[in-house]
């Protein structure tokens, strides 16, 4: 092997290796990926719509202005508007909510108001992963749906395929972005930024493969639902006390 051939070979190998690494999620040396199966538990009754989670997420993940990896919706329902609730989410609920929605509040019988935090559902059978033409969107072995920004074409098919409106195209990077469940944090033993910032414990990161995780006990004792169950996406954002009017 002469010097020229060796230099060519190492250059090519370095490029190939970079390509292989591009598809790998961030990892932590002591993190055993096969021991986890991540999900999120949201107790709607506990959410006060303060917007801490939205701000924490934006700061932690450098989310561009006007786009959201997580957001909060305020629902107002009364007997006359079971099918057509009033919903608002001013700036994704980032700065909390005004006393009344812009168009005014409902006033009918059995009026109720509640807040619903939203984020990527990290679906087991995620439509966004299915449709990505190059596999830039993928599910990690520990159940988190991620986007490889170095590989994404920016075709926006995944944004169309997500039934929950969780994806957006980063205005400068021109690639798809969404909640990563703070993968860079949870693989280091931390919780997500939104969970950490939640003052009422409405959001809880859950590890379904950890038998000691409190989620198992909670799910036994509470009625837990997912958003749009008819979509059959295997959503892993579990909601406790979810009203039937929530879309």
């Amino acid at each position, binding site marked *: 092997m002469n010097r020229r051939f060796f230099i060519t070979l190492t250059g090519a190998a370095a490029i190939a290796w970079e390509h292989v690494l591009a598809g790998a999620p961030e990892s932590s040396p002591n993190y055993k990926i096969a021991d986890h199966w991540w999900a999120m538990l949201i107790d709607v009754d506990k959410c006060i719509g303060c917007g801490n989670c939205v701000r924490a997420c934006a700061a932690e993940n450098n989310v561009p202005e006007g786009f959201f990896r997580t957001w909060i919706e305020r629902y107002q329902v009364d007997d006359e508007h079971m099918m*057509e609730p009033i919903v608002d989410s001013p700036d994704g609920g980032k700065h909390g909510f005004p006393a009344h929605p812009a168009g005014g509040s409902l006033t009918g019988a059995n009026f109720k108001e509640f807040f619903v935090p939203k984020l990527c559902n990290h679906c087991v059978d995620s439509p966004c992963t299915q449709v990505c*033409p190059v596999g830039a969107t993928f599910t990690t072995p520990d159940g988190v749906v991620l986007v490889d920004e170095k590989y994404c074409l920016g075709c926006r098919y995944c944004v*169309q395929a*997500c039934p929950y409106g969780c994806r*957006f195209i980063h205005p400068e990077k021109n690639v798809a972005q969404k909640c990563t469940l703070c993968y860079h944090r949870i693989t280091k033993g931390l919780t997500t930024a939104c969970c950490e910032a939640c003052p009422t414990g409405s959001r809880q990161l859950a590890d379904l493969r950890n038998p000691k995780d409190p989620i198992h006990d909670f799910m036994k004792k509470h009625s837990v639902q997912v958003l749009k169950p008819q*979509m059959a996406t295997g959503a892993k954002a579990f909601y406790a006390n979810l009203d039937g009017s929530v879309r």
Partner: protein
Amino acid sequence: MHNFIYPNENELQWSILIVLYPFLTGLVAGAFILASLERVFRVEAVKPTYRLALLTALSFLLVAPLPLQLHLGHPERSLEMYLTPHRSSAMAMFGFVYLWYLMVVLVLEIWLDYRRDIVIFARTSKGFLRIVYKLMTLGSDNISEGSLRVDDRVGYIITIIGIPSAFFLHGYVGFIFGSVKANPWWSSPLMPVVFIFSAMVSGIAAVMLLYMGLAKLRKEPIGIDCVDAIAKYLFYIFIIDFSLEMLDLIHRIYEADESFRSLDFMVHNSLWIPHVIIQLLIGTLTPIAILGVTQIVPLAVNIRKRLYAIAGCLTMVGIFAMRWNVVIGGQLFSKSLLGYTTYNLHLGSREGLGTAIVLTILPLGILFVLAKLLPPWTSEAHHDTA
């Protein structure tokens, strides 16, 4: 109806360029199917349009990926769809369907059909053109009777393969939309079938208009038997296409699932003009009525020609509106089914109206060059050798 959209839905994802993409692909599939009428089904009346239809299909197919390319956030990565395709993605697999159709069906069929002419042109022309024709022969300059018989036979087989391929090409475009379960306006098993028939309608109308227009430009008589036959096929296929769209509509209205109220509101408001007025009334029912009249009432030749031209133009408007209403209409309502958004069409941006107009005209420019190089009308090579 209240107006709530998910916060990330403020921006429409697919623009007029994505409207253009199924429109152009549909013209390809439709034009090819018209060409196959002569080749496979021996419809002699449409023979004058055979080569024109093939060249039209090629011109539009060459431009069809451009709107997609211009739309991508990272067009420099688009080749990854071929190098590392994600097999579960309808969009990734479309790249291969497109390549199959372009290289195996269309280019090969055109080359086989024109090979004799190309060889003769290579022998008779001079200068740069001679080199071009020489290259186009691909080194195959045997135009003996036996050799041409083989060309004809292989061309016939390719056309037979080409018909399901053309169906597949555009049916697949329909599947890209129809398989998005998150979007109730798109999600329908009928979508690929509707796309196939609307493609046939648009392609046949486009070739009919081009044939009539080019004959006028060349000051040659329009073969009335030819346009009569094309108009007849256009009429029948249009009725099937319309019936399928109505079936989809009736099904949606009768079933009235959770999305119905939201979609119904959209059709009666933001989509009223593009969908009901332009697509259905002006672009579908009117041309069907005109074509119907020409089928039933014995009219003078000149009147028939004019009516065909009007029906053809309206058909093109209707099919473009259909693509618009599918692509843009499917993004005007929120997936929350509680609100609506609008599409702002810019003039000068990368995905604006200007780009769309250029991309619509570009295939006609390519067709002009192709028609100069490979004349689709009478075989000029025959005259040269005579």
